[in-house]
C-alpha cells in the first residue's frame, strides 16, 4: 500500500514540476542586467546580525536579565534575525539572477567572476532558507514560551548545513562588488550600502 502511495506521489510530483517550471519561466524577471541589481537589494546590517548570533553577547544577556525578561527579548531577537536572514535570501536570489545572465556573456573575466558569485550566492541562499525553516518552526511551536525548556539560542545559527552564514554573506558582498566593478562603475557605493 505504502509503495503505491509513494509511486503515485512521484508521478504527481513530476506533473506538478512541469507546471512549476512553466510558470517560473513565464513569471520570472526577464534578463536581469547590472542596471537591475542595486534597486532590488535590501540592506543587511552584518554587524547587528553578528551580535545576534554571538554566543558571548547572548550568555551575558542571559546572566544580566531575569528568565522572563530574557525570554521576551530573545523572541524579539529571533524576529530580527528572521528579518535579516530574509533579506539575505532575497539579495542572494537577485544576485544569482544577475550572475546567471552574466555567465552567458562573452567576456571571460566577467564570466569567471559571475561563476564565483553564483557559487557563493547559492551558498548564502541555502543557509538562509535552512535557517528560516528552522526559525519559523520554532515560532510555529512557540518554543520560546515553553517554561520547562530553556530559551532557544540563536548561537547555533553561526553554521547551518555546514555553511557559515555571515561569513558566506561577507564573501557574497565581495564577489558581487568585483563583478559590479567589472561591468559598471556607476553606482558602486549604492551597491555596497544596499547589500
Amino acid at each position: 500500500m505504502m509503495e503505491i502511495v509513494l509511486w503515485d506521489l512521484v508521478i504527481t510530483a513530476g506533473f506538478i514540476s512541469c507546471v512549476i517550471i512553466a510558470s517560473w519561466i513565464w513569471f520570472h524577471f526577464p534578463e536581469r542586467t547590472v542596471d537591475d541589481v542595486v534597486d532590488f537589494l535590501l540592506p543587511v546590517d552584518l554587524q547587528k546580525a553578528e551580535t545576534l548570533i554571538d554566543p558571548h553577547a547572548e550568555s551575558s544577556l542571559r546572566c544580566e536579565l531575569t528568565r522572563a525578561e530574557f525570554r521576551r527579548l530573545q523572541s524579539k531577537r529571533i524576529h530580527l534575525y528572521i528579518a535579516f536572514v530574509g533579506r539575505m535570501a532575497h539579495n542572494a536570489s537577485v544576485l544569482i539572477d544577475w550572475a546567471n545572465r552574466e555567465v552567458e556573456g562573452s567576456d571571460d573575466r566577467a564570466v569567471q567572476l559571475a561563476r564565483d558569485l553564483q557559487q557563493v550566492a547559492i551558498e548564502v541562499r541555502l543557509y538562509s532558507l535552512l535557517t528560516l525553516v528552522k526559525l519559523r518552526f520554532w515560532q510555529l511551536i512557540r518554543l520560546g514560551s515553553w517554561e520547562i525548556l530553556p530559551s532557544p539560542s540563536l548561537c547555533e545559527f553561526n553554521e547551518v548545513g555546514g555553511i557559515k552564514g555571515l561569513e558566506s554573506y561577507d564573501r557574497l558582498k565581495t564577489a558581487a562588488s568585483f563583478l559590479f566593478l567589472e561591468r559598471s562603475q556607476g553606482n558602486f557605493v549604492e551597491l555596497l550600502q544596499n547589500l
Partner: protein
Amino acid sequence: MYLLNLILWWGVLPLQAVLLFILSRKRAFDAFPCFFAYTLFSVFAGLARFLLRGYHDIFFWVYWGTDAVYSLLGVAVMYEVFQVAFRSFRHIWWFRLIFPATVIGAAILTLVRAKSVPAGPHIRIVQVVVTGEMGVRFLQVAMFVLLVGLVALFGLHWRQQAFGICAGYGLYATVSLLSTTKFYEFGKTFALMWYGISVAAYTLSVLIWLWYFTGPLETEPPRADHPPLSAQELDRYKEIVRKVQRP
C-alpha cells in the same frame, strides 16, 4: 492510416538524427559525453528497430536488448546531469549523497512495486528489463523534481543544457510511469492509447533537447591559475569599501 501510424511510431527518429547532428557540430561530446552516447545509440537502435520491424523473432530481442542499454545509459546521463547542474553545491558534503540516495531509493521502490503487481510480461528477461526501466524512469522523475525545486528555491539557471536534458527526461519519464501504471491497472484495453501518449511525450522531450542545444553550448571554462582580479584591483576595492559610509 498506415502513414499516420508510421509517423507516430517512427517520427521521432529523424528528430533524433537532427539532434545528433547538432550535438556533433557543437562538440557536445566534450561537455556531455553520456548524453551524446545516449543520442548516438538511440539513432542506431531506432534504425535497427525500424529495419527489423517485420522480423518478429529478431525484433523481440533487438527491442528488449536495446531497451536494457537505454536504461543503463539513462542512469549514466542522470549522473552526468547531477555533476553539471549541482556543481555550485559540490563543496557541501551532504549534497554529494543525494544522487546515490536517489538511486537506492528508486531501486528499492521499483522492486517493491514490481513484486506487488502480479500481472505483467511473462518472460523473465522482459520482466527484468521492464523493472529496470521503471527504476530509471523513477530516478529521472526524482532528479527532475529536485532540479525544479532548485530552480524555484535557489534560482538555478534553467537555461543551462544540463537542466534541459533533465527536463526532457523528466517529462517523458513522468508520462511513461503514468502509462505503465495505467497499463497495469486497466490491462491491454488502453495499451495502444497509453503507448501513443508515451511516444508523443518522448517526441516532445526530443524537441526540448533540440531547443536547448540550438543555443550556444554552456561549458565551465577551465580555472585560470591566477585569480580574475589583480592585487592592485583588490586594494582599490578595499579602498572604496573603506570610504563607503552606511546611511
